[in-house]
């Protein structure tokens, strides 16, 4: 009997990270995961903190949690920022009753209410823990032999609330290893990519990406494996701009962990949205992906 979750995609995964969404749907079946999309979900308010109004920022996520509560399943999402918003809302509504009261007064406008208690998980945790590395290993058809992967967590998968030690996480390395790839050390694996600063303070965000790309080059990684749409966007889409700003020549592909899983399971390039990549894979990875010459 396959574990079943209420799946919360989030806005980016639907749009600029379509490839993430595609690969998630492609691997869910083979991994024996039932991801039931949360019906009529709304934006979690990724940037809602900017609202002068605090209550509103919690209402947005609270509505989703209220909808999810009806199904009684654990909620799982693949976007680190959505993940933290869900966790934070749960935590705040629990520790600040007066806030909970305000939020519920607003939710009442749509005949909704949320008193807390919906478990939320990041998809990485679901795959690495609930499905389990052993199971993943069994399913591997095409081990990612010889591919040097830098496992990058970013921030909000782990902080402030996450599935494991925010200082020394190992889930992603474990997973990538199970796929047969060669996991490089990656000292900056929990460092920030700049996140939404890329929109409001590009200079700062670019330098953070530079550090990460440099670190990846340093450990001779052929691909950076990410678990968050924003990390992927900053590291891949802005890679060229980093190069221009710092006179560097980085050309590291940045793939979602679900895309790597898909490759190892033997799924095809298009099923995993790999054709949408901007930085093309090279070396052993390219052979696996089977990029048209």
């Amino acid at each position, binding site marked *: 009997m396959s574990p079943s979750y209420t799946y919360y995609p989030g806005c980016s995964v639907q749009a600029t990270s379509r490839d993430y969404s595609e690969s998630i749907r492609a691997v869910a079946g083979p991994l024996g995961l039932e991801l039931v999309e949360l019906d009529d979900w709304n934006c979690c308010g990724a940037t809602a903190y900017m609202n002068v109004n605090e209550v509103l920022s919690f209402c947005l996520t609270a509505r989703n949690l209220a909808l999810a509560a009806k199904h009684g399943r654990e909620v799982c999402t693949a976007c680190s920022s959505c993940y933290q918003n869900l966790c934070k809302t749960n935590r705040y509504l629990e520790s600040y009753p007066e806030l909970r009261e305000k939020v519920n007064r607003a939710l009442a406008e749509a005949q909704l209410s949320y008193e807390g208690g919906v478990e939320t998980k990041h998809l990485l945790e679901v795959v690495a823990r609930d499905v389990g590395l052993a199971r993943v290993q069994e399913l591997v058809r095409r081990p990612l032999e010889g591919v040097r992967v830098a496992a990058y967590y970013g921030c909000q998968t782990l902080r402030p609330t996450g599935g494991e030690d925010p200082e*020394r996480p190992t889930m992603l390395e474990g997973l990538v290893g199970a796929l047969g790839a060669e996991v490089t050390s990656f*000292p*900056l694996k929990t460092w920030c990519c700049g996140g939404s600063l890329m929109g409001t303070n590009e200079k700062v965000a670019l330098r953070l990406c530079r550090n990460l790309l440099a*670190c990846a080059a340093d450990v001779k990684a052929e691909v950076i494996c990410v678990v968050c749409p924003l990390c992927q966007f900053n590291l891949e889409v802005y890679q060229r701009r980093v190069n221009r700003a710092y006179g560097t020549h980085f050309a590291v592909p940045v793939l979602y962990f679900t895309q790597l899983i898909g490759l190892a399971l033997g799924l095809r390039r298009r099923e995993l949205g790999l054709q949408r990549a901007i930085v093309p894979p090279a070396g052993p990875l390219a052979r696996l992906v089977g990029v048209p010459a």
Partner: protein
Amino acid sequence: MSESSAARVGVYICHCGTNIAGKVDVEQVAERARTMEGVALVKDYKFMCSDPGQDLIGEDIAREKLDRVVVASCSPLMHEPTFRAACERAGLNGYLMQMANIREHCSWVTVDKEAATDKATALVAGAVARSRHLRPLQRRRVDVNPATLVVGGGVTGIQTALDIADSGRRVYLVERDPTIGGHMARFDKTFPTLDCAACILTPKMVRVGQHENITLWTWSEVERVSGYVGSFRVTVRRRARYVDEATCNGCGVCQEKCPYKAPSEFESGLAKRKAIYVPFPQAVPKVPVIDPAACVYFKTGKCKACQKLCPTGAVDFEQQDRLVEIDVGNIVLCTGFSSFDAARLGAYRYGELAEVYTALEFERLCNASGPTGGEIRLKSGEEPRAVGIVHCVGSRDRRFNEHCSRVCCMYALKFAHLLKEKTRAEVYNFYIDMRCFGKGYEQFYGRLLDEDVRFVRGRAASVTDHAMNEGERGRLVIRVEDTLVGQTRRIPVDMVILATGLEAQRDADEVARRFNINVGKDGFFIEKHPKLAPVATATDGVFIAGACQGPKDIPDSVAQASAAAAQVLTTLARGSIEVEAATSVVDAERCSGCRLCNTLCPYSAITFDAERGVSAVNDALCKGCGTCAAACPSGAIEARHFNDEQMFAEIEGVLHDVHA
């Protein structure tokens, strides 16, 4: 009732300076008290506990013929003995004195003045009503067994044991490790004097081993404790060490020849020891112990090299744990601390990065008898060019221990000095606040400043091996905000020493239960009074000393050790002590002989008299908890000093204003 309603109660209300008077309107409380039934006189005074205050009570007892006294002041846990004594000096039985706690329970915890005054009045009313039903009681004296149990053989336990034993009294010293010496035996130098720890400790260890009045049981633990002050019965588990202490002559052949190794606990795992081993050369007793986990004989049934080669035939693989029972009059706990597990604090990557050490590891690293012979070297064998000492690791950190460990600043300075002395390394201290409060400590800090040790005011944020520039390649980088400069710095070093804090022993809770004392939120044992009874506990006859009560350096631990010894010796000097008179008694007339109380009594102090078909309380065993009285279906048991009459009166008293 008639006899009590005739009572003449004297009520004394203490201002305690402004502690009470600042919040409670004492004059008004006095006014109201005058109208209470049975009250003969009411006085309020600045400090009742002062001599004039006490004399006041004495004089009134004589002049005004008071037969009950109520003192409304601080907690009875503080001054009940004081005022009982005051009454007794004036010829009034101490048990006819009742206190009302209007400080800890009222003036200190209440915001509103009027509310505080009303509450104080109610508490006084309760005390007055109760006092009228009090009856004189005689305290019993019980003999004190002259033997003492000291638990823990660190420097504190050693000092306690020697102080008591030197006075000619018997001491049982129980230590769970194979040797005494504790943490101090592992230290290199001691701050701020820099004298060598072993040099000052080992002579004491030897004296313990040879002392005619000390029975030393190492590799042993206290399993059970029963009885009460003066006569405790203690069961000690003497774990099998597989070497007979009587026949072993400590020649050491066994560990020389033993082919199997395991990491040495004494060397903090930096070196190996044999499967049969004496933790370190000066160990006391110098009797080895076999570690079954490492010994191949216990795994495969083969080898026995040690047994074959032992000249005295002391090795005995068949040895079993033994339970030994001893009777003692007093117990002193010197169970010490355990140091914070640095692996819990991920940011410093202890256990991952080879050149990140804990304080205890470094102690061994610079100790002449340590794994490197006292040479401070990196794993590569090279001398470090720079060393970073990180303060407050696991201390002043709400995620781990909220308390300051008190000794880290100073031993960090000691380390810095030793590094300067033995190497050419640049030494950095990363601190939040320098706390150098002891005698000669601040001077030592000053000396280190002169020795060009670098002090960076900021808690190290992280330790990493990720190089951002050439100067950092192949080294460790400490990231920190230099809060005095207001800039974040990346400081490359070759070795990091984590100043790990002191925390309570992992099993402090169980131990506390076993000895019937309390532990605080920080996990350390609680003393009877933080200022005035630092080594006593809530349980008479059980004392605490050293780091088991809270982080302490050596001088403070030794001072407490002698303090505890003195407390024990005062009881021994008298030979007997007074114990609580408030015990239970069965009224044979009303006892139905249902024997419910027999099973309820936690001390099996109540036995059934088959002939008369009634139960009776054994005064010597009863501790006066009153559980039997509460449960007796026929109300035949009286809990002296807490009997129903007195309780009911107090209940009505504290509710005096209900119908007002």
